[in-house]
């Protein structure tokens, strides 16, 4: 039998025949050329870190890496935090809120309301223009407010903040009167959010439904829109005509930077590595595990900004047994070692929260600090008292039922929530509580919550007003298949509802302090939710970037930024 492969099979040490070698070399050559071609396409990657040659503060384009794609650039439409970060540079608001929470005049010079805060009057700054030259006046303000409530706009943020508005009337060019169907003290805080940024009526009408993706000339802030390549990049450039920063800002006139480029880089390790290797000037949303090394890197500057918002808290489904029992919920709270949980996951970025709102939110009740502690013995005792005895497998049982806490969470993970879930599971196992974790998409989580298919779920809301408690605990917002709401603790308490309504209907500082203190203490006493940490916004820049400001709610502000 002839061995067909003989010609090409070689014994060890035998060289290949010449023709074969030539063909082989040709193929190898082709491969190497391909490799060389690829390498030649490379070269040192440029960085956007170009300061002005003469070393002055003016100029340069700041390149910022964002973690996700904004859902639009029309302040009346958007609902995501990342969109607000970008629009914050493009649109000015009527009022600003300083880091200490004080309200500061911006495009509105002064404001007042009636006794129950159902009618608000705003006096506007004179001589301000939009980026397309349209004068800023009372009519423009009412235009912006009314369009947020129009059904065709599909507003996801502004429309909610202005929902109780009944009418907006003008008196001359610089006075606006807004009437609400009920007392609405949170209106003042709403005016400071990027969701109520002022857009030019002329530009909005001209662009129509395209304004959300192409808001050309429509802004009122220090930067104007150039271009948005979806899922890739947003380009802004300095608007030379800007001259109305909030009162008390250290400089006026146009911004220092000549432009900002926002790139969308969803993969956290790539985003962070790109800043470390000087491919971007700045990036948001740090990996907690790299925080320490980045902090120590003298070529970088790190910022950790506590957001004025609802804290990240675990909400019990208090409508479902056995978690409708306050003492049982307290036993869970006692069994959680929050400092060690936060330390191992967040490496010092997130701090323990004691209330349902962050310490820098107005009317935060500081008496709640350290009002409970990690106490396994206390937890075990409570559980024993309630009749839950240790059964097989180390979990507690009562009348044949294992004490189970079913937790639902969203995948892909945001802010290491899934790690929090895992640590929670381990810690509660120590006292005999079985935690089952189910990860699902955001839409599925909302469906599970609407149907009550959960015992506990993590929640936070990015509203900087204490009125965020209304959305989280008012019985009107209990989620159901027919109506979506954020009262995920299923709280239905008439006294609380009344307090929350009172909190909206007065502007008296002392009354508000006492109302919100009562609310926070009631929530803490009933352990409807367990606050875990204060959400923090993280940002890292090259050391050559100076003057980054952060809004009260945690958004970066590049008006005073310059690059050396």
């Amino acid at each position: 039998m002839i061995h067909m492969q003989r010609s090409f099979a070689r014994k060890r040490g035998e060289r290949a025949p010449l023709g074969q070698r030539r063909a082989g070399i040709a193929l190898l050559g082709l491969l190497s050329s391909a490799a060389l071609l690829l390498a030649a396409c490379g070269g040192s990657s440029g960085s956007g870190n170009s300061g002005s040659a003469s070393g002055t503060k003016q100029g340069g384009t700041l390149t910022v890496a964002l973690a996700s794609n904004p859902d639009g650039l029309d302040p009346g439409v958007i609902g995501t935090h990342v969109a607000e970060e970008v629009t914050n540079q493009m649109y000015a608001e009527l009022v600003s809120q300083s880091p200490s929470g004080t309200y500061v005049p911006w495009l509105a010079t002064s404001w007042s309301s009636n006794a129950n805060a159902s009618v608000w009057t705003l006096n506007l700054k004179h001589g301000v223009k939009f980026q397309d030259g349209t004068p800023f006046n009372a009519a423009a303000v009412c235009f912006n407010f009314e369009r947020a409530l129009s059904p065709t706009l599909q507003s996801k943020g502004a429309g909610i903040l202005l929902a109780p508005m009944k009418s907006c009337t003008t008196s001359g060019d610089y006075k606006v009167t807004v009437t609400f169907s009920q007392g609405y003290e949170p209106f003042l805080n709403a005016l400071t959010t990027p969701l109520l940024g002022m857009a030019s009526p002329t530009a909005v009408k001209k662009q129509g439904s395209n304004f959300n993706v192409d808001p050309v000339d429509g802004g009122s802030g220090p930067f104007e829109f150039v271009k948005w390549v979806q899922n890739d990049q947003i380009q802004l450039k300095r608007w030379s005509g800007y001259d109305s920063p909030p009162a008390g800002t250290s400089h006026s006139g146009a911004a220092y930077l000549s432009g900002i480029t926002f790139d969308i880089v969803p993969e956290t390790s790539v985003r962070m590595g790109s800043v470390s290797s000087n491919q971007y000037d700045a990036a948001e949303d740090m990996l907690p595990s790299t925080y320490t090394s980045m902090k120590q890197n003298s070529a970088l500057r790190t910022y950790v900004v506590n957001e004025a918002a609802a804290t990240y808290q675990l909400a019990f489904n208090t409508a479902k047994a056995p978690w409708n029992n306050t003492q049982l919920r307290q036993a869970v709270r006692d069994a959680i070692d929050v400092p060690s949980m936060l330390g191992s996951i967040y490496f010092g970025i997130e701090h323990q929260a004691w209330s349902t709102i962050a310490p820098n939110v107005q009317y935060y009740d500081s008496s709640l600090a350290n009002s409970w502690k990690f106490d396994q013995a206390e937890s075990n005792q409570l559980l024993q008292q309630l009749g839950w005895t240790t059964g097989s497998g180390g979990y507690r049982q009562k009348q044949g039922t294992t004490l189970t806490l079913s937790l639902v969470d969203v995948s892909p993970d945001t802010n290491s929530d899934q790690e929090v879930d895992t640590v929670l599971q381990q810690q509660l196992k120590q006292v005999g509580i079985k935690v089952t974790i189910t990860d699902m998409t955001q839409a599925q989580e909302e469906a599970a919550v609407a149907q009550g298919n959960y015992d506990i779920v993590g929640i936070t809301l990015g509203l900087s007003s204490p009125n965020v408690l209304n959305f989280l605990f008012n019985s009107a917002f209990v989620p159901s298949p027919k109506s979506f709401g954020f009262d995920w603790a299923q709280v239905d308490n008439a006294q609380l509802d009344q307090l929350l309504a009172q909190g909206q209907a007065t502007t008296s500082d002392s009354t508000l302090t006492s109302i919100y203190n009562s609310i926070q203490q009631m929530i803490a006493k009933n352990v409807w939710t367990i606050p875990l940490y204060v959400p923090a916004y993280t940002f890292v820049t090259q050391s050559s970037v100076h003057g980054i400001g952060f809004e009260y709610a945690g958004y970066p502000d590049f008006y005073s930024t310059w690059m050396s």
Partner: protein
Amino acid sequence: MLEYVLRRLLIGVPLVVGVSIVVFFILHLLPGDPVAAALAGSPATPSVIHRLEAEYGLNRPIWVQYWEFAVHALHGDLGRSYITGQQVTSVIGAQLGATVQLTVAALALTAVIGLCAGVLAAMYKGGPVDHLLRLVSVWGSAMPQFWTGIMLIIVFSFSLHWFPAAGTGGLRYLVLPAVSLALVSVGIVIKIIRNSTLETLSQPYIIALEAKGLSRGAIIVRHVLRNALIPAVTVLGVQVGSLLSGAVIVETVFGRQGIGSLLVQSIEQKDYPLVQGLILFIAAAYVIVNLVVDISYAYVDPRMRVAVDTDGR
């Protein structure tokens, strides 16, 4: 030939329609409410939610919703995204180029590297070159793309500064993502080409050619490569499919635009019109690519040409 092409295209139509129906109903039957997803993070009053539901047409029976979608689709209107409000056709159009760029580049790399390496491995069977290339083949097809992608970024971008880590743009932005995407396909193609080349080399006519006095080089270039190409065409056609799905991961890791990452995003956000439009588009693309592969068979393999022409199958 023309009849064959037309018949294949005609069969493709019910396929695409079937896919769109299945996807539509799956999307609507899965738990999760697109209005809630669109509002994610924003507290809303019931009136706002009802308004949005009416806007999106979600309060009508599901078959009515599908019928309206189908009618509009036939007129080239795939609806508007729930999230940005843009026309679906323009969203897809804007992002399509980047994915095509990436897929074509990866396919080219796969073809060139896979083919050359596979033939080389077969020619030097048993030697160090063969062992090395087989190792590369196994490694390439086994390693997950998000890992190889990040490794490539760490070495060639963060350390060596040869290429940018993220973004969409010219050739420089394409190299690392294309390599990362192509690695799996290259691994598979090397193996298949090596095997088909070895099989070709074992044919009696190769010995006959040697006996005729043809040089080794000429045998390889004129005879072996042509025959090795036949399974290569099948493999490459199948690989287009896996390249498209790999593009989802690669586009996310490298922060690139494209319909892969767009599809994942829109599914998570329950952006029904965008998901429908993307699936419709991808299904149509598959049908066309498969048709092109089948037609190209006829040019690569003369035996297929006869078969196609005589009985149109």
